Structures are given as C-alpha cells and as structure tokens.
C-alpha cells in the first residue's frame, strides 16, 4: 500500500463486505459513466521521500539570496528561534477552527492573547482573530465603513497608501459596488484640504489613511478624526504593525478602525505569505466587525475559559447577510505574533524600531552624500523606510545591485526614477556600508 494509507487488503475486503459492495469502484456506482475519467491522471508518478526532498531542495537552491533592503509591505525582521519552534507543535498546527472549546483552549488562548496585543498596539478596544493580509484587512475596513453608514456608499482612501493595498481595496470596491475615491497626495502626504472638502459633502462613509505611508513618510493626522466624526464618517488608519510600538497609535489619532499587516511582528517574508492582516475597532462597532472573535467566559465549574463568540455576525449563521464571507482567516499566524510579542515585550519592540530607524537614517544620509540620490519629497519624518530619486536609471541601478547580491528597495510606483528602500534591525552596519560602497 502507501505510507499515508493505513488500509490493508484484508481491511478493505471486510469493509466492502459490511457496505455490501464488491469493489472500491462500485462505491461510485451511482455516478453516470459518461462523467467518469476513463484514464490515468496526466501527472507524475509517486515519488519517495528522498526524491521529493531532492526536487524541492533543488528548487529552493535556485532562489539566489539577496541581502534585503526592501519593505513596502514585507519586512525582514528578526524572528526569535522560539517562534517557529512553538509553531511546529502539531497540537496547534493540525487543529482546526476551535468549534469544540473544551478541547481547543490552546488555540483560543493564543488568539485571545493576540487580540489583546493587537488592540493594545493599535490603541483600540478590540481586535478580531485575524484577516488574510494587510490589503484584504483594509478592504474589510472599507466594507465596515459602508455597513456602518447604511445609506452612504462612498469611501475615501489616501493615495499615499501602498499600491498593493489600493489595488485590492479597489477590487473589493468595484465588485461590492462601493464608490472608492482616492484622496490625492501633496508632497508625499495626503492632501488634508482635499480630504476635508470631500468629507464636508456629507456623503462619505469613511476615510482610510496609511501610516507610515507607501513612501515611508510618517503623516500627521491631526484633526482628521474630528472632521470625520462631525460628518458621520468613520476614520480608519492602516499601519505597519511593528511601527505601532513607537508611533502615535490609530487610537491616539482618534480612529474608529485600525487595520494593516502584522507580518512585521516576527513572521518570515516567505515570498509573500502566509502573513496576517489585523483589524481592530471600538466596542460600538463590534457587530460590524467581520471574522472570528474569541471572548472570555466561564465553564460549568466557574473557571475562566475562552470561546468563539458573537458568531451571529458570521457567514455560517447569517449566510448572505453576514458582515463578511470570511471564515477563520490566518489563525495560526496569531501564534507567531503572540509568541513574538511575548518574547520581545515593549522593550524589544522599541529596540527593533530604534535599530531600524538608525540603520535607515544612516543609509539615507550616506546615499544623499554620494550625490547620486536626492529625497523624493524633501526632508520628511520617516521610521525605517524612505523614498529617494536616483540621478540616472533607477531600474538599472537596482538590477546592477541585485547582481552584486543586494535587493535595493522596490521601484516606487507612480514615481519613475525613484526607489523606496527599507532597513531593519537585521542589517548590520557592515552590510549597509557594503551596499554603499557597491553603489
């Protein structure tokens, strides 16, 4: 037989006998013959463990390593060894949505810890138990705005948001018939006067802004929450999760919704996934919140324990009237985030940001000094990511550096000749110096 099938020939015969059929094929007797596949599948033959290891190992080896100076939605941060170690515990990884709370307290507890940490980092009242990624979390934030407003169908989003986020939010808006309006940028930040004019039309369900924005700039959102609330619109802030340890929080800006990607909290880059989107909000909006929520309650003996709650918002009960179609999203990644933040604490998260800040500012200054780069928007406050204009061909420069083993940022979308570059605590001074000397 085969390593993943425990049946012996005897077992199969006995079982067929109980069922009252002669063969495995007879189990499909009711299927019309013309629908059946009358040939072998045209895919490769089975392979041994040794062969599979070789094939996939070779493919991994074909991916040539580049020293990462790119961010734009995925950051090369330190992952403590404990994080993947704990995540390898199959009591966690081989379980499913914790429907049976009595035998799922492990999953429910780490999600509760995750919810606590994300609500606290964003300065909001509560967090759900994850979204797919930062882009879809922002799309769901848009849907929350529309659901909350009932009679309004227009949502504003800052044009300084990451284009990946913008594209996904645009897709959801188009298919859900939401009118999405981009608030233009002025000098690398959202034009607040434009936003004000749009909101004062009193037909806007919500405004979504980004922090730090796509260019790496830290924006000043003063006054926006009051403006939105005065005109019955929600205010949503998309942030890079790691930065929340040091930057003014969405809650401190007066936001109603905080959303974004939490990959920066200990999750490897893994060529784009799995990551984890977060979505946090205020108590008043909990019933507009999509996705799973874990709550604390007591068991029959009065002990504190955890359970999936507020399920009447969800697809398996409300069907087409649900807040979203999302089921459990990236549950397991909550364990990455919770264990990462447990190890790092406030001090560690601050240190990560300080080192990234120092590295990024050091590199930024050095690049300007070469005379071959200039700030894309003049001096602006930034944390670990910045956008520079290359005097010369930016794409060519990035290509040439890749050949020398460096991933020099991403080509800034909508800004020909510019690169958006990130530095994290993973880059040593020596590595940064080596990059500079290779430019």
């Amino acid at each position, binding site marked *: 037989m085969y390593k993943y099938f425990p049946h012996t020939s005897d077992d199969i015969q006995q079982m067929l006998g109980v069922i009252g059929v002669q063969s495995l094929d007879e189990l499909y007797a009711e299927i019309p013959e013309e629908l059946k596949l009358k040939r072998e599948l045209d895919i490769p033959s089975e392979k041994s463990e040794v062969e599979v290891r070789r094939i996939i190992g070779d493919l991994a080896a074909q991916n040539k390593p580049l020293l990462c100076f790119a961010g734009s939605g995925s950051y090369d941060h330190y992952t403590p060894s404990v994080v993947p170690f704990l995540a390898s515990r199959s009591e966690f990884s081989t379980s499913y949505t914790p429907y049976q709370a009595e035998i799922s307290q492990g999953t429910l507890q780490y999600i509760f810890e995750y919810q606590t940490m994300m609500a606290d980092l964003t300065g909001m009242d509560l967090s759900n138990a994850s979204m797919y990624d930062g882009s879809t979390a922002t799309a769901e934030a848009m849907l929350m705005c529309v659901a909350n407003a009932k009679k309004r169908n227009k949502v504003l989003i800052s044009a300084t948001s990451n284009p990946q986020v913008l594209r996904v939010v645009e897709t959801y808006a188009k298919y859900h018939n939401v009118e999405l309006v981009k608030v233009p940028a002025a000098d690398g930040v959202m034009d607040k006067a434009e936003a004000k004019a749009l909101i004062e039309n009193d037909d806007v369900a919500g405004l979504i802004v980004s922090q730090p924005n796509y260019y790496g700039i830290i924006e000043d959102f003063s006054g926006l929450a009051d403006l939105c609330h005065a005109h019955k619109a929600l205010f949503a802030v998309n942030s890079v999760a790691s930065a929340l340890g040091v930057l003014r929080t969405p809650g401190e800006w007066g936001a109603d919704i905080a959303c974004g990607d939490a990959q920066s909290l200990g999750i490897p880059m893994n060529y784009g996934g799995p990551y984890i989107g977060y979505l946090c909000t205020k108590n008043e909006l909990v*019933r507009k919140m999509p996705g799973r929520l874990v709550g604390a309650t007591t068991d029959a003996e009065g002990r504190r324990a955890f359970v999936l709650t507020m*399920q*009447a918002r969800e697809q398996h*009960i*409300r069907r087409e*009237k649900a807040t979203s179609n999302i089921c459990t999203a990236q549950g397991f990644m909550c364990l990455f985030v919770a264990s990462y933040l447990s190890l790092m604490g406030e001090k560690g998260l601050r240190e990560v940001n300080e080192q990234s800040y120092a590295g990024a500012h050091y590199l930024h200054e050095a690049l300007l000094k070469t005379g071959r780069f200039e700030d894309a928007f003049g001096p602006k406050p930034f944390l670990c990511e910045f956008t520079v204009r290359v005097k010369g061909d930016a794409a060519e420069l990035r290509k040439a550096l890749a050949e020398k083993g460096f991933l020099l940022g991403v080509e800034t979308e909508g800004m020909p000749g510019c690169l958006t570059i990130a530095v994290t605590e993973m880059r040593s001074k020596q590595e940064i110096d080596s990059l500079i000397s290779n430019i």
Partner: protein
Amino acid sequence: MAKVIEGLFYAESHEYVRVEGEYGYIGITDYAQSQLGNVVYVDMPEVDDEVTAGEEFGAVESVKAASDLFSPVSGTVVEINEALEEQPELINADAFENWIIKVKLSDPSELDNLLDAKAYEAICE
C-alpha cells in the same frame, strides 16, 4: 405551549402588531422567542426610518442563530424599545410586553392581510 394573545395582528414570519390608534407596536411572538432561545442582541432600526410591509427591519440574535425581522406593516419608526439594547433577554421574559419598534402606520388597510390569533395559533402547531 407558546402564548398567543387575542386582539393582535400576526405575520406568518412570527412578528405581531399591537395597534393603538394610528400607531402599531411591533415585536416577535412568544412562539418565535421560544424557538430562538436566549436572545442576546436585537438589531433595531433608527427613529424616523421607514419600514415596509414584508421587508426586513432588523434582526434578533441568539448565541448560535439569528433571525431577520420582517415588518408586518408599513410606516415610520417613531420609537424603538431602548430597554432591549441593554437587556435583550426581556424578549424571552415576555415577548408581547417587550415590543421592538413603534411605528406610525402609513396604510392601516395592510392589517387586513395579517392573521388573527386563531389563525396564527394554527400555524404554530
């Protein structure tokens, strides 16, 4: 056996209307609350919202179910039962006493399309 009160108008979707003058008090029946179990939340419209006969105006949630509310009559919401915001379980205690919305009827002739107590009782059997 679920309670049914004489003199009210009933919808097949298990809402009732108690008419007082030009106003109607709309809630869910005792039968509906007993089928739903512990009510944990009532999603209500806002004052001044319009409701239309046969159309949805809110929902009642229990822990593992949710039931849409359909208005038996058309009109304008003049009051919502704010007590249900904090204590939705009042519906379980007495569904007829604890109406959900008070509506100014726009077309009292719609009441003729609804069931009387006897006809409604027959549905619940």
